[in-house]
């Protein structure tokens, strides 16, 4: 059973069955994992670069809420949220980041190559643009096998600056493949904003529709909206009508690493201030309060439960890694 399913099982049925609270729980779970990595990063246990998903979790959770176990997902360098939302093993993810043989890639890949094919999370491809053609092959296979499953390619907005993305959109439209492309538009390619990357007049919608694909966009901070829009798109994709979605979102941490890099000044004050309203966890929390389905106390108890769960798995991964370290020491002293 996936970690998300485990956590939901631990919650009172009234909480786990309520859509908003379920979304809150999943967002909170991913946030907890990412925050734990950031806090512990200086301990040198996680020994690889990390591209944290904090601030962007709603897209992963909203889209994945409409996916079946056998649907196939491919992600990028910023893959943690997509991996966890699809149900990827948290232990094997922590272990992979530590370089442990128990990691999902046996330590061969690190954070940028997470995968868990048992839950349909097929690959993380950190070369921007390269993931979508591979996802198109997964979709082609599902179509030929007649499974009714779909493939989903999560990408960042800079993918629209790569040539192979256009090749792939053309191919997917031509072959009517069951592929959903989800653009998480956080506005930045590392530190570079769009003013140095794309002409002011460019409209993603026109590019996508011009090549023959369907397009919808929405607020990537709002998990409910993401879930609704992706539900509409996926019902089409399941009939071999490929779709591209664009969600604006906010990357809270630096491009790569455990820190907040506001002091560098490449994002404006007002942009940074907007995050307090945009934070997907706050957005869903507000909705939960407004719909009267939840209280502050209830959500705090969810927070505590998740925190303990994630901490427990983290410690398990640390112990597993320590076993390997001990074996290495023994080997080198012989």
């Amino acid at each position: 059973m996936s970690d998300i399913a485990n956590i939901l099982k631990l919650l009172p049925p009234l909480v786990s069955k309520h859509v908003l609270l379920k979304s809150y729980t999943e967002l909170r779970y991913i946030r907890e994992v990412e925050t734990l990595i950031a806090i512990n990063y200086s301990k040198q246990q996680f020994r690889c670069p990390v591209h944290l998903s904090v601030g962007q979790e709603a897209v992963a959770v909203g889209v994945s809420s409409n996916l079946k176990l056998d649907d196939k997902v491919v992600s990028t360098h910023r893959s943690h949220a997509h991996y966890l939302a699809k149900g990827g093993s948290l232990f094997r993810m922590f272990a992979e980041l530590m370089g442990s043989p128990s990691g999902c890639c046996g330590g061969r890949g690190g954070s940028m190559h997470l995968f868990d094919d048992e839950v349909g999370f097929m690959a993380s491809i950190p070369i921007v643009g390269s993931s979508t053609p591979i996802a198109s092959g997964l979709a082609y296979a599902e179509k030929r096998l007649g499974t009714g499953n779909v493939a989903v390619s999560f990408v960042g907005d800079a993918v629209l600056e790569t040539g192979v993305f256009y090749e792939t959109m053309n191919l997917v439209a031509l072959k009517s493949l069951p592929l959903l492309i989800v653009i998480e538009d956080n506005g930045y390619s590392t530190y570079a904003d769009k003013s140095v990357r794309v002409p002011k007049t460019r409209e993603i919608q026109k590019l996508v529709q011009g090549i023959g694909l369907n397009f919808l966009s929405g607020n990537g901070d709002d998990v409910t909206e993401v879930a609704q829009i992706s539900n509409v798109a996926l019902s089409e994709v399941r009939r071999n009508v490929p779709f591209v979605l664009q969600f604006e979102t906010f990357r809270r941490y630096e491009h790569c690493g455990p820190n907040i890099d506001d002091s560098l000044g490449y994002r404006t004050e007002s942009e940074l201030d907007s995050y307090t309203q945009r934070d997907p966890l706050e957005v869903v929390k507000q909705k939960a309060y407004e719909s009267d389905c939840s209280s502050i106390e209830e959500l705090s108890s969810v927070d505590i439960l998740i925190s303990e769960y994630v901490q427990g798995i983290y410690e398990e991964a640390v112990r597993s890694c320590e076993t390997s370290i001990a074996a290495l020491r023994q080997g080198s002293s012989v």
Partner: protein
Amino acid sequence: MKLTYIEAIKLAFDHSLAQDEKVMLFGLGVGDVGGVFGTTLGLQDKYGADRVFDIPLSENAITGMALGLSIQGFRPIMVHQRSDFSFTSAEQIINQIAKTEYMSNDRYKVPIVIRMIVGRGWGQGPTHAQAPHALFSHVPGLNVVAPASPSDGYQLLRASVNTDSPVIFIEHRWLHQTTEEFVPNDDIPDIASSKIVRSGNAATLVSLSYGVLECLKISDVFDFFGISLEVINLRSIKPWDQKTILASAGRTKKVAIWDIGHKEFGVTAEISHVIQNALFGNLLAPVERFGLPSEPTPSSPFLAIAHYEDLDRALLQLNSSFDFQINPDLLISMREKLHPHRSIFQDQPDVGEVGPF
């Protein structure tokens, strides 16, 4: 039965597609009236357009699609009518396909074949005549093979399709009209085995692809003077059959390697190092090597004469380095008698078509 190389490749495709419905065949020209020099003609009608098809001019995306298909259990074959176009998909080949088995901790199999045709002559020039086998052999995670005859082509293609790892299949355009008597069947030799195509004791000639035909001509000439050369067809370049080649080199103590690619940092350099390392002190002469210089391939037939290895130059060089002590004039006249050149230019094969091709 007597088959041309083209017919042998078409049969290998046909038999592979018939053997397993997960096998797919696509690439530029695969579904068109030319059928990639005739090697794919009729296969789309026979196996359907969802298995055998022409592609948009998007090699990089299509190669990524092949990877996605292979992870899901399909066995795609991707075709490039000229190897040079595969470089547009180098990202998918080098960064993705070569690494997928490794990164998945060996959970994924990646049974992809990428067939690349190497052009030569009649003005093919700098970007239509490259032989990239050494380049791809440098990348861990890729197998690289290069047939030298119709039976080789048939068997290596069948073996490549049956391999659960990615295979780069390097095919020389000048083999297309060569013929051979053989029975194409399911009895397929190991993909990584080389073949001793002629036994001898005076020296070992190691080669691959079209180079094997050149080495056989060299052997014919020396044979007339009572000097028998062993000719080994590598077949597989990565991995290569060290055992057979070292055993032969240990017997003859004189080795020459003939490549269809560049010498510098290439196949001849690698094999020569391994031989000289293993047999240091036992060899009677340094390893000789033949191949292309470090310059792009010229289009002009006048320039191509100096670019490609020349049989007569090679005969004289081996005669001298290996101390065979044959009168050079007799050597050249025997070559003219046994293997007369079709024209003064080195830009068309001795067997088969004349240009343009």
